[in-house]
C-alpha cells in the first residue's frame, strides 16, 4: 500500500507541475556548473541572470543553483526546479545536455535553454557564443605585436570549443605575421589558477611574448605583468584591472541580451525551441577595449576586422584552408559550415604538435 501511495504521489507531483506554473510572476531558473564567484564562466552567466532581474523587476523571479555537478545531480536539481514552478530554465554547461533532455520530457510545459549543446526538443532550445570570432581579432593583434614570433596558448581540455579558438587565433596571427609559431599547453583541468600561472611562466620562459588563454583566471596576466614585456588578453571577463599592460584587449562573455530576449519571449508566449549561435554582431561576444599599448594602426585593423565579422562581411574560417596533415579543407572563398565547426577536432595547417586524444 505504501509503495502504491508513493507512486501515486510521484504521478501527482509530476502532473501538478503544470498547474504550479500558473502564477503571475514568471519564474526563471539557472543551473551553474561552478560557483558564481569563479570570476569567469559561471560569474558571467550570473551577470546575465542579474541583468534579467534588473530588466523585468517584479514581473520575474529568478532562482539559481551553483556548483551543480554534471550527471545525476543535475537531473535532480532540474527536476526540483521544475517542480518548484519554474517556467524557463537555463542550463549553462555542456554536461547538462542529457539531463536537460530527460527532465524536459517529464515537464512539457516548462521551457529549457541548454548552453553549448546540440540536442533539442519542442521545449528545449540551445544557445552558444561564437567565441572564435573574438579569437580572430585576438589572433590578428597577437601576430602584429609579437617580436619573438612565438605565441603561447593556455588551453583547458581538447574539446571542439577550445580547438576552434586555437585554429581561429592561429589563422589570423599567421595572416598578420607569416613567421608566427604557436606553443600550446593543455592544463588538463577546468580550474586550477596556480597551474595556469605555472603554464604562463613556462611559455614566457620559452620565448612567448604574447599569451592567449582559454582558462578563466587572471594568473597568466599576473605572470606576464611580472615578466614586463609580455602581452595578454582577458578571457570571459574584461580583466581591465590589468590594462593597459599586459592586457591589451579581451573576449567578454555577454549573455545578458540573450537571456532578456528569451525571458521576454516566455512572458509573451512566443517562445519556441531554436538553436542560437551568436557572435560579435548581436553582442553575445564582446571585444574589450583595445588598450593604448597597441599601436594605432594595429588597433584600427583589429577594429576593422571586428566590424567585418560583426556585419557578416567576413567569416573567420574562409578558404583556402588546409587541415594540419595537408589535406584540403576549404577551397578559395569557401566558408566553414556550422556542423564542422561545432565538432571541430583537427588543427589547421601550420600548427605544430597534436591534439591529445
Amino acid at each position, binding site marked *: 500500500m505504501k*509503495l502504491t501511495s*508513493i*507512486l501515486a*504521489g*510521484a*504521478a*501527482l*507531483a*509530476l502532473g*501538478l507541475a503544470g498547474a*504550479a506554473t500558473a502564477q503571475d510572476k514568471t519564474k526563471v*531558473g539557472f543551473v551553474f556548473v561552478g*560557483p*558564481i564567484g569563479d570570476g569567469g564562466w559561471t560569474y558571467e552567466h550570473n551577470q546575465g541572470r542579474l541583468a534579467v532581474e534588473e530588466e523585468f523587476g517584479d514581473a520575474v523571479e529568478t*532562482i*539559481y*543553483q*551553483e*556548483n551543480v*555537478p*554534471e*550527471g*545525476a*545531480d543535475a*537531473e*535532480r*536539481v532540474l*527536476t*526540483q*526546479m521544475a*517542480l*518548484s514552478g519554474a517556467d524557463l530554465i537555463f542550463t549553462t554547461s*555542456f*554536461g547538462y545536455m*542529457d*539531463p536537460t533532455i*530527460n527532465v524536459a520530457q517529464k515537464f512539457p510545459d516548462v521551457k529549457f535553454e541548454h548552453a553549448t549543446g*546540440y540536442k533539442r526538443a519542442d521545449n528545449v532550445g540551445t544557445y552558444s557564443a561564437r567565441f572564435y570570432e573574438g579569437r580572430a581579432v585576438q589572433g590578428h593583434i597577437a601576430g602584429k605585436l609579437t617580436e619573438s614570433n612565438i605565441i603561447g596558448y593556455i588551453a583547458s*581540455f*581538447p*574539446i*571542439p570549443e577550445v580547438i576552434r579558438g586555437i585554429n581561429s587565433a592561429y589563422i589570423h596571427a599567421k595572416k598578420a605575421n607569416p613567421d608566427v609559431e604557436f606553443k600550446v599547453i593543455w592544463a*588538463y583541468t*577546468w580550474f586550477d589558477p596556480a597551474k595556469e600561472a605555472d603554464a604562463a611562466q613556462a611559455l614566457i620562459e620559452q620565448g612567448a611574448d604574447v599569451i592567449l588563454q582559454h582558462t578563466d583566471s587572471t594568473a597568466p596576466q599576473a605572470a606576464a605583468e611580472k615578466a614586463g614585456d609580455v602581452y595578454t588578453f582577458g578571457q570571459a571577463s574584461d580583466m581591465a584591472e590589468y590594462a593597459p599592460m599586459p592586457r591589451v584587449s579581451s573576449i567578454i562573455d555577454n549573455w545578458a541580451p540573450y537571456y532578456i530576449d528569451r525571458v521576454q519571449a516566455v512572458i509573451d508566449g512566443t517562445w519556441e525551441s531554436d538553436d542560437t549561435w551568436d557572435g560579435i554582431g548581436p553582442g553575445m561576444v564582446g571585444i574589450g577595449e583595445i588598450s593604448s599599448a597597441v599601436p594605432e594602426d594595429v588597433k584600427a585593423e583589429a577594429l576593422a576586422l571586428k566590424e567585418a565579422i560583426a556585419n557578416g562581411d567576413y567569416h573567420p574560417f574562409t578558404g583556402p584552408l588546409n587541415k594540419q596533415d595537408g589535406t584540403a579543407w576549404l577551397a578559395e572563398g569557401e566558408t566553414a559550415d556550422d*556542423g564542422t565547426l*561545432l*565538432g*571541430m*577536432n583537427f588543427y589547421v595547417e601550420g600548427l605544430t604538435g597534436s591534439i*591529445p*586524444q
Partner: protein
Amino acid sequence: MIRLERRPAPSRAWTVATPLLAVALTMVAGGLLFAALGKDPVAAIRTIFWDPLFNDQFAAYSRPQLLVKAGPLILIAIGLSLGFRANIWNIGAEGQYIIGAICGAGVGLAFYPSESWLVFPLMVIAGGLGGWAWAMIPAILKTRFQTNEILVSLLLVYVAEQILASMSLGLMRNPEGGGFPGSRNFQQYPAASNPELIAGTGMHWGVVAAFVAVIGAYVLLNRHMLGFHIRLTGQSPRAARFAGVRPTRLVLFCLGASGALAGLAGLFEVSGPAGQISIDFNQGYGFTAIIVAFLGRLHPVGILLAGLLMALTYIGGELAQFMLGLPAAAIQLFQGMLLFFLLGVDVLSNFRIRLGRREAA
C-alpha cells in the same frame, strides 16, 4: 571546573540521543548563520530537513532521491570501514570509483549495441575488478615495499582523474556525439543500463548492492573469523599476530574489498544515474564516504544511517539554495557544522561530565 570521566561502557541512551542532540544544536547554530545572511532561519532549517521528506510539492520526488544519493556513499563507506577498523588507510576510494566506472563502462561500450542480458552482469564484474585492481596498487606496494598506503591511494586519485579525462576525450568518446567529449549514454542502451528497478522508488542495482553490503559487513564483522581478525588488528596489532593473523593477507583483503566496492559504486553510477563517462564524472563520493564511515562509527548500520543523513543534507541543501537563494557556500558551511556537532557530542556517549572539583575517592 568541568571534567570528563570515562564510562566503563559506552552509554546506550547517549549513543541514540547524541545524533539527535547534534542535529538540534546544528539547527540552532545554522539558524543563526542563516539569520546573519538575512534569511528566515526557520524556513531554511525546514527546507533542509523537512521539505525533502514531507513537502507536498517535492517530497514524492526527493524522497526516493535520498536512496540514489546515499547508495554510492554507503557502498563505498562499508568497504572503507573494514580497512579503517584494522588501521589500513585507503584514502583513495575516489580513484577506485573512477576506475571501476571506466572498466565497467568499457565492457558495456565494447559490446554496443548488443541486446544480450549478459552485458550488464559482465559490466558489474568488470567494475568490481577495476576498483579492486586499482586498490591492489597501494596494497602490493605496501606489502612488498612498505610504501605508505595513504600516499599511494591518495595520489592515484589524481592519476585516475587524468585517465578519466583521457577516456572521455579519446577512446570512449561517443562516435555519434559530434566530437564532444563523453561516452554514449547508457540510459539509451538498455542491455547495459542500470535503471530504476521500481518506478518512483529510486531503487537501482547500486542501492540494492549497498544494502547487501551493509548486511554482508554486519555478518562478516560479527559472525566470521576474518571479521574478528580485522577488529583484533585494529585494537591490538600484537595480540592479532599472536592470534595468527597474517598482516599481509589482511592488507590485501581490506584494500581489495574497499576497492572492489568503490569500483562497483562507480559502475552502478555511470550506468545508472550519471549515464555516461565524462570528464567530470566523479564528484567526491570517495572522499565524502570517509566521513560517512566515521560518522557511522565504522558500524554497518551506523553507516547506513549516516549515508542517509548526508544525502538528506545534500538534497535539502539544494532545495534551500534555489527556494531561498542561499549561496552554496552557506550550505557547505552548514554541512561542516553538522559534522562538527555530530562528531563533538559523541563525547557524551563515552564520557560522563562531572561538575565541580575532583572528589577524593
